[in-house]
């Protein structure tokens, strides 16, 4: 075991993936010699050569198009989009191409080897275009898998699983935690399951559900609630698509209450899908409405970012609201 921050854990996973598989490539804007603007690919060009780890021209639709082609050919592309806010020029290549490649061809061809890594999320004074959490934009797309880790240990295990998964995976990295989150990470190879949520804390009064950097927020809120004698069960969804209905539903059957918190704005966020499904799965067991604590329905602001955010205080208030319903 070693102490790693989230970036190091990701770098380590990429290193393992490239070492074991000659056809694995890492590329994207500034990903080569420089190692990416966050340095997630640091040292990989030196180790694996310029043919396997390189800068691309500045064109997201090209990066993912190129990656789709590589994946179809049998290589294992791991493409980086510099910020999740800049993934939209590649939306067509992801939603119309990556996601539908296998289906439309009757499995004659597929891009299952594709992994897209991209830093997401706010809280770093990034304003409209360095803060977005766009997971829900992709979640309406059968054929994609979407994974979000909450800490270094999860990041390494889930990224290795994503790279090896035989479906296109978008791997959203919580950039606020890149250096802030440090933890024990095994140096050897391991994988964590895609498609499985994790109960990170048992509780009996209410289920709190989040993913990625937002886990920290609900943990903090749960601490506050504990002082009021409220016992929270915490779940990290980990995979947004396809998501683990059973783990969430089982928890809610037990606690009778659900709160979902996401960084992204409320309307049509992924919390809505979860609420819609769980109200159906657990209808007779719900003791209060499912709460969604999300960003305000605006573009991501700069100076009022605290006000915009779904912070622990807003989550805490919503816990009390739910309990006292």
């Amino acid at each position, binding site marked *: 075991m070693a102490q790693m921050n989230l970036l190091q854990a990701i770098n380590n996973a990429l290193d393992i993936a490239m070492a074991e598989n000659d*056809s694995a*490539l890492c590329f994207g804007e500034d990903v080569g*010699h420089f190692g990416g603007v966050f340095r997630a690919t640091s040292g990989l060009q030196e180790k694996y050569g310029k*043919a*396997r780890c*390189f800068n*691309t*021209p500045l*064109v997201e*639709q*090209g990066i*993912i*198009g*190129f*990656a*789709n*082609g*590589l*994946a*179809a*050919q*049998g*290589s294992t*592309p791991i493409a980086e989009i510099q910020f999740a806010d800049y993934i939209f*020029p590649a939306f*067509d*290549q992801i939603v*119309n*191409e990556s996601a*539908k490649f*296998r*289906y*439309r*061809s*009757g*499995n*004659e*061809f*597929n891009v*299952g080897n594709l992994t897209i890594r991209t830093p997401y999320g706010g809280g770093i004074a990034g304003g409209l275009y360095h803060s977005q959490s766009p997971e829900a934009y992709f979640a309406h797309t*059968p*054929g994609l*898998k979407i994974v979000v880790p909450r800490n270094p240990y999860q990041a390494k295990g889930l990224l290795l699983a994503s790279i090896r998964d*035989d*479906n296109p995976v978008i791997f959203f990295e919580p950039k606020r935690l890149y250096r802030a989150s440090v933890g024990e990470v095994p140096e050897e190879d391991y994988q964590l399951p895609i*498609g499985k949520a994790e109960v990170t804390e048992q509780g009996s009064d209410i289920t709190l559900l989040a993913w990625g950097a937002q886990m920290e927020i609900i943990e903090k809120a749960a601490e506050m609630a504990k002082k009021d004698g409220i016992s929270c069960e915490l779940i990290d969804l980990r995979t947004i698509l*396809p998501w683990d*209905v*059973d783990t969430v539903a089982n928890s809610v059957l037990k606690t009778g209450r659900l709160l979902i918190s996401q960084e992204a704005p409320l309307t049509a966020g992924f919390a809505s899908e979860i609420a819609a499904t769980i109200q159906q799965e657990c209808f007779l067991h719900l003791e209060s409405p499912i709460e969604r604590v999300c960003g305000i329905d605006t573009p991501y602001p700069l100076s009022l970012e605290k006000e915009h955010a779904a912070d622990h205080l807003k989550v805490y208030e919503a816990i009390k609201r739910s309990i006292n319903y």
Partner: protein
Amino acid sequence: MNTDIYKEGPVVHNAAFIDGHSVEIPILKILQQDGTVYQGAELPKINEEHAVKIYKALAFHRALDERMIGAQRQGRISFYMAALGEEAASIGGAAGLEAQDMIMAQYREQGALIYRGFSLENFMNQMFSNEKDLGKGRQMPIHYGSNELNYMTISSPLGTQIPQAAGYAYGQKLQGKDAVTLCYFGEGAASEGDFHAGLNMAAVHNAPVIFFCRNNGYAISTPSDEQYVGNGIASRGVGYGMKTIRIDGNDILAVLKAVQLARAYAIEESKPVMIEAMSYRLGAHSTSDDPSGYRTKEEEEKWHAHDPLSRMKSWMLAQNWWDEAQETALFEQLREDILAAVKVAEKIAKPPVEDLVSDVYDQVPEHLQKQLTSLKAHIKKYPEAYPLTAGRIK
């Protein structure tokens, strides 16, 4: 790292614009319409066997298009796209490649698939979206694909295959394969952002890909002068530092020659090449289109005179590699085979309901399995409403 950020040109002290049409682009023509070769023209590598194979593919294509347009009119298939008058581009392209080369087409290049030997049954099964369709009946007619024949399944969104071809070719190179990727697209699709992305990435990353633009003068109703005002698509080649050639796209020998050269260059230099083949879409855009709304019969007539089939035929006759009896027999046989194949294909059952949810992922995930289960129960309840699948649900 290179800090010479531009190629030093002459230094001037009086301002003058480079003209937007300052690249002169020659057009390669080898075969004349009467079947004679231009004086001094250098032929592609071709022998009798190869020529006959190419010509038979052209004939197959023509017969198939004519027949399937008819089948669509009769309501037997829902949709069709012909390549009347521009068959030389797709067939000549495939004929200049090796079997291991990948072809990533737009949609009007069924000729390449014909050349590679996609069976008549396979064509029909796709168009009738029956359960023997390699694509499992999921896409509209003419969205063919074959892993075995290295022909990437067609995707309707235009231009998306262009950066994909760059990536595919890069992978081929990285793995040391003796193979290139040939990527077809129309002059309309060349307006898409993905075109720019794909050509630049291929150039920067030295991907052995042949970008083959079929410039047929129209994108549905939009004539090329409302698509671009530069000198065709070839003039963009210099913007990417890419070797480029313009050819007469109705001249099968010019197509073959250009592709043979391009392939050799792409393999040896590990670099991309662009080919622009000038042609004309003689027919409607698709069976949903009626060109009389946007162009004249006279304009079309003009181009009938450049027919690539009759041009190649005249050459074949002159070579004594073909004769009129063969011609008649071939077309008769083709029409008969196609008609027979239509009749077989339309009777084959549609794909089973399980194919609705397979291949979304490598394995059917839980939520889709559940959706399938309740769908099946629902179909059993209302079998008459789902006649294609109801009969086969256990």
